[in-house]
């Protein structure tokens, strides 16, 4: 562009700056570059996180290798870093919470799909779900500590376990309440995408609500519902505050389903501020592990949803 203007001069023989570009075009060019830069910034966040976590956990991995993931004793003072108890507890707590949440989230989704239910009831249901999702996790933790733990204590006494009140099962119950809204809202969104004709055809053939829901709607919506479960699992794995407050902060394998333990997230929340050197690097490494696990679930879940929506 500059070439075509060579030799031409502006007023007074001097070329005004940027005169070689048409004003409209230059404005657009700059604006689009700004847009692009912002988009680029958002898209490199995940990558930047990976690099940062990897670099900072490298000292730990170099010294202890990946066997920290399978050894059992976590004792930073004696430089023993075994993360297996936390990894097992994290997976156990999340999967139990997910399994427990399934009947609830599916029920809510079926109910919002029901035809002869007034809009007002459906509205109440979705508003309540949104509010459940909006409650800060620290308040769930506080509530679990003050209201749920005493009930769990009674239960533990009845079952013959030490009555801590806090523990794996308390964390599972709180987590279940917290993750239902996400899977329920995704399940009902996906069910809304099921063509009305299928549902109507099913009813026309004489099928009742039960059969239509379980044998027509559920199979058609199943990939999207699965995606919702994967996303909830990702959230459960990474949930920190509520779990930290009610899981009991015990750095070993839980002795039973009601016993205290620690997840990766709660371990980090409890120890990171006091940690330094290798201990800190080890915690960052566990953070990286947690990040990678949740990334896989989120990626798969989102992929399933996007494919579902495109169909």
């Amino acid at each position: 562009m500059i070439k075509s203007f060579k030799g031409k001069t502006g007023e007074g023989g001097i070329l005004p700056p940027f005169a070689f570009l048409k004003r409209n075009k230059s404005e657009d060019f700059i604006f689009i570059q700004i847009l692009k830069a912002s988009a680029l910034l958002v898209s490199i966040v995940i990558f930047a996180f990976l690099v940062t976590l990897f670099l900072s956990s490298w000292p730990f991995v170099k010294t202890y290798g990946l066997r920290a993931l399978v050894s059992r004793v976590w004792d930073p003072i004696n430089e023993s870093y075994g993360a297996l108890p936390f990894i097992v507890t994290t997976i156990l707590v999340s999967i139990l919470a997910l399994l427990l949440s399934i009947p609830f989230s599916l029920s809510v989704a079926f109910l919002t799909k029901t035809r002869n239910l007034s809009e007002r009831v459906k509205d109440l249901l979705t508003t309540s779900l949104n509010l459940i999702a909006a409650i800060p996790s620290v308040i769930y933790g506080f509530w679990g500590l003050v209201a749920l733990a005493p009930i769990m204590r009674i239960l533990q006494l009845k079952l013959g376990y030490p009555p801590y009140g806090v523990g794996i099962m308390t964390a599972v119950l709180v987590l279940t309440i917290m993750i239902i809204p996400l899977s329920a809202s995704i399940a009902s969104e996906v069910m809304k995408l099921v063509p009305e004709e299928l549902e109507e055809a099913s009813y026309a053939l004489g099928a009742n609500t039960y059969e239509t829901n379980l044998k027509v709607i559920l199979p058609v919506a199943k990939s999207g519902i699965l995606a919702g479960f994967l996303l909830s699992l990702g959230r459960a794995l990474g949930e920190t505050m509520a779990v930290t407050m009610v899981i009991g902060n015990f750095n070993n394998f839980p002795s039973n389903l009601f016993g205290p333990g620690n997840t990766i997230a709660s371990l980090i929340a409890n120890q990171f501020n006091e940690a330094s050197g290798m201990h800190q690097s080890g915690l960052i490494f566990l953070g990286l592990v947690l990040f990678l696990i949740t990334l896989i679930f989120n990626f798969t879940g989102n992929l399933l949803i996007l494919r579902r929506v495109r169909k």
Partner: protein
Amino acid sequence: MKTRKYMDKIFKAGIITFSILTIAPLFIILITLLKWGINALNLDLITRIQRPVGERGGALNSIVGTLIITTIATIIASPISILAGVYVAEFPDKLISKITAVSSRLIAGIPSIVIGIVVYLWCVKPMGGYSALAGSIALAIMMIPNIVTATAESIMMIPKDYREASRSLGANFTRTTLKVIIPFALPGILTGLLSSFSRIAGETAPLLFTSFGNPFLNLNILKPMSALPLLIYNYATSPYREWHQIAWGASLILILIVFLVSIISRLGVKKWKA
């Protein structure tokens, strides 16, 4: 034939029961909060700062801290996210735009504690100390997904005619976007902003290693600062009744802020979509 009818009835009763059980915790938690929190709501709570056990203390420093940290987070997050959202909506076929859309969904799934660690490594370590600014940056990252999605979706809902009319009158892309598209999409964008605000106002984990907390009233964003969720966490896990009381009061204030903002944003969605 009879079993079919019974199964249907059991199924209907089942989904109704389970749905009621699903929303029951909301009311149980709200009632617990009100029961304990109402007594704690007094002038001390909003006029005094944290004090040791035995002295009359309050949550003023945390209330102010939450307002400052979340406001700065919003200021950091919104321009980048809105511009990125505009790019995603205007150039949906470009590679960067696809990566941005996926990335923003993935950001929504990052465990909040991991965001805390990373921002600690980015800001706290190099700057040599905890700071409210680091906390704001951590929360700003959490705000990105909602704002990007809300912006992109509300721009995509605008009929093509508006853009074409503007372009045919001679306005370039920049003017069209800034003067026609964004004003039309503004209600949707604001809704996204509010809903992400209500999401971060209650976040604790990203603040643990960044803003850290501070028992004094501090207005300097380069120093550690308290926030309501941090206060609730510290006081709720303490053994003192008196501190529990303050934590209940603080929880009530926090949940009122969060619910108010999220209900306003929901109403916005309804109006916008109608």
